[in-house]
């Protein structure tokens, strides 16, 4: 799974550390790209997917642009995150954002009247022509999430937290 979506070259990693040396997240947190890739190659799945540091990558792709072996570390990290989410490791604020997209069609919805006023202040219509004014678009998103099983993934998490 990681090889297919993350990067077929992961096995070419020779642990040079260019990724971690380039990493602005690693400079201030315990997030270590090189270490995660090493652990993934060793098959230490539970260790890799359960660590909260997995979520400190901002996906800036600096490591990907500098990796001498074309391992595509950012895509590897995203693929590992997909596995983590599928196995129930999703942080609460992330689950909330996912639910917002399913409920409002947007991760950052229009939400309050004050934001409509802000739009009027700059000379725009109060509601933009996106999902904020198209409820049928939100229905589309719900149908897609139902088909891919993403709705359950988010909802199940909600239950276990209650």
């Amino acid at each position: 799974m990681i090889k297919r979506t993350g990067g077929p070259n992961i096995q070419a990693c020779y642990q040079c550390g260019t990724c971690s040396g380039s990493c602005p997240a690693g400079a201030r947190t315990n997030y270590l790209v090189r270490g995660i890739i090493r652990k993934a190659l060793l098959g230490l799945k539970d260790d890799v997917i359960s660590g909260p540091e997995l979520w400190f990558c901002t996906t800036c792709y600096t490591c990907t642009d500098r990796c001498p072996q074309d391992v595509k570390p950012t895509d590897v990290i995203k693929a590992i995150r997909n596995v983590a989410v599928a196995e129930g490791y999703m942080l609460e604020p992330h689950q909330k954002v996912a639910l917002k997209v399913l409920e409002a069609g947007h991760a950052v919805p229009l939400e309050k009247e004050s934001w409509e006023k802000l739009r009027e202040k700059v000379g725009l219509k109060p509601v933009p022509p996106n999902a904020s004014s198209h409820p049928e678009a939100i229905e589309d998103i719900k149908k897609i999430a139902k088909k891919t099983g993403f709705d359950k993934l988010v909802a199940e998490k909600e239950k276990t937290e209650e």
Partner: protein
Amino acid sequence: MAKPKFMHFLGCIIPHRYPSVQKAAELVFEDLDMELLDMEGATCCPAPGVFGSFDRVTWASIAARNVTLAEDAKANITTGCNGCFASLWDADHELKHDEELRTAVNEALAEIGREFKGTIEVTHYVDALYNVAGLEKIRKRVTRPLTGVRMALHPGCHWMRPKLIKKKDDSERPHIFRELCEASGAEYVPYKDELICCGAGGAVRTADVKTALDFTKQKFDSLLAAGGADIIVTPCPFCELQLDLGQVEIQKHFGEEHKYNFDVLHVVELLALAFGHEPEEFGLATHLQYMQRKNEPNWERLGIKT
């Protein structure tokens, strides 16, 4: 020649939090004889680092739905957000090259009577301005050059990275965004951490705002060490939010003494000013930094009102 037309993908942050960017884009594109079409019923892109980290097929399916709206209109997409650009461009690119993903996505899209066909291109405002309008036309349209304004840049990540896939610019030494901004007449100021991430992406701001702000703070300190600047210009509203509202949040999380005073502009806001539009025409003063601090842009430093 027919007027270039684009489906205008707004995303979330531009229409819902930084509407001045939407208004400025409308002004600038019109000035350059390019048409922006409303993209009725578009949803969240959805955010590549957030949704893409959760479930790749769901992410690609929702992004593909947005792309099919433009396929119906037979027009390329343009967007002013690095995140939206990355989501829609990456999904479009991956769906054009990955049969297995395309099959899975089209199965999901069949539920809503849609199909990804791969008939359009996804562009960023930067592409539309640099490649379609062109620097020559932009320079000719400048009626109020921002001469003497010292401008730092924050190009952000997702327009140009990963460089081998996007093939936009050299991400270690980019020049396209800089040339576009320099067309305004402002003076480019380099600083060491110009190319590092603002800190907001990849679901980090959502999970841990203080860690995200620590990136931002490093950028600001690096800029001050290089002698400071009058403005910071970015091609992304999420970076803009992080750099603009982030100044207020840094004081909250790191202490009042960490006070930065940078005016942060989206590149279309910079060009709108250079094209002679008054800041009130697109609401520059509605940036969240000013709303929270109850102040205004530093007009004198911007050379707009003295």
